[in-house]
């Protein structure tokens, strides 16, 4: 049972704090308080609970800082964020950009990329054709038929390596055509490896969903705890405010009563 009375005649708060942090001071006050502690349950209990608070405080660690600083002789400013930190910062600001800005930037990027890559999309009677790279457009059948006829005429005047070049071009084109045909055929019929791939993708998606569900549950639990704590804090605030209002009201009522009493007494005398 804790004694509610403490007979320490010095500065109790100072003595408790000095004892709590054990500042090592060998003063008469400290010796007196140590002697007092042996007989005072209240001080002992308070010291123990303050030690408990210190133990809880020890569990508070700030989040890891995301900086790595470098000092450069050439830099006018002594502290410069490193590249990784810059990247982290720009990534953060990118995440904070509004969605419309991100979409606009993505479209701009795609447009510029398409322009650089000589991106060519055609939709005609032959269907949709997409072509990239710096190659000349594929000749139409009519043009390709006319081309061999025109070539011999100019071939005589051209250098001898041009024939080799033309042969090489034809070979590359035929190989490219073969590759396209094979790719198209492969795309049309699902193979065993596709099924495997699908299974793996499904497994990955399932795994990801499970992880997300777990994460969501944890976040929900955290949010609920936060809300509960906030609610408690709000209730305490409201309670305190109400207490203050009640106090003020009580004082006002008391004053009014005093005034009424005075008036009553004055009217009695008259």
């Amino acid at each position, binding site marked *: 049972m804790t004694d509610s009375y403490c007979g320490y005649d010095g500065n109790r708060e100072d003595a408790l704090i*000095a004892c709590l942090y054990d500042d090592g001071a060998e003063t008469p006050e400290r010796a007196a308080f140590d002697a007092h502690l042996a007989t005072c349950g209240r001080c002992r209990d308070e010291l123990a609970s303050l030690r408990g608070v210190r133990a809880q405080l*020890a569990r508070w660690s700030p989040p890891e800082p995301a900086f790595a600083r470098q000092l450069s002789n050439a830099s006018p400013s002594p502290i410069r964020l490193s590249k990784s930190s810059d990247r982290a910062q720009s990534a953060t600001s990118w995440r904070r950009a509004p969605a419309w800005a991100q979409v606009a930037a993505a479209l701009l990027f795609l447009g510029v990329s398409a322009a650089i890559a000589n991106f060519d999309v055609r939709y005609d009677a032959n269907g949709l054709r997409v072509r990239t790279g710096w190659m000349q457009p594929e000749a139409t059948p009519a043009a390709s038929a006319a081309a061999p006829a025109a070539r011999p005429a100019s071939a005589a005047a051209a250098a001898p390596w041009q024939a080799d070049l033309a042969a090489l071009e034809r070979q590359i084109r035929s190989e490219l055509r073969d590759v396209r045909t094979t790719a198209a055929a492969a795309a049309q019929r699902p193979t065993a490896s596709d099924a495997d791939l699908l299974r793996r993708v499904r497994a990955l998606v399932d795994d990801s969903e499970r992880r997300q569900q777990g994460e969501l549950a944890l976040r929900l639990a955290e949010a609920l705890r936060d809300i509960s704590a906030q609610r408690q804090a709000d209730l305490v605030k409201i309670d305190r405010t109400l207490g203050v209002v009640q106090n003020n009201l009580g004082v006002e009522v008391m004053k009014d009563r005093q005034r009424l009493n005075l008036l009553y007494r004055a009217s009695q005398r008259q």
Partner: protein
Amino acid sequence: MPWTDEELVARSIGGDADSFNELVLRWERPIYALAYRTIGREEDARDVCQETFLRAFRALPGFRGQAKFSSWLYRIALNLCRDWVRRERRTPVVQPPEDIDLIELAAAAEPSESIEDLVARKDLSRLVERAMALLPEEQRTAIVLKEYHGLTFQEISELVGCPLSTVKTRLYQGLTVLRRELAKNHKAQL
């Protein structure tokens, strides 16, 4: 043998930028932790930390070694924190760090620690943060300097510019409020 702070300061004043870099590396975490625990916002704490070292670098030629380098840095950081609190005109609100990823956190956890333990540990840490945010600035600063930076009562008294007995009183009052708040939160969680 590593250089002492005072030796590094002398070399920095002599124009050796690497020495100042060494001082930054040595003190950036304590200064960041001090700023974070005082103002409670991760990004602002980083800014305060960076500004502290910028100011220290600029004022280095005027540093005569009357106080320890660390005390001098703490004073700059505390002044910046005080400016921040006044400028923002608000009580420090402790916020959870941005982009909390529990999966990443779990990876950083102790091998024997489950995700529930990890969340519980974070919860307790957050409760302490919230309770600390309720304290007046002077009490919070006294507790942070004593509890997390191990300064003596005398050093705190010199840093914040108040008598030694006031430091003890602030500590006592702050700890008493924390005890009450933490007990209340503990009951609320049960």
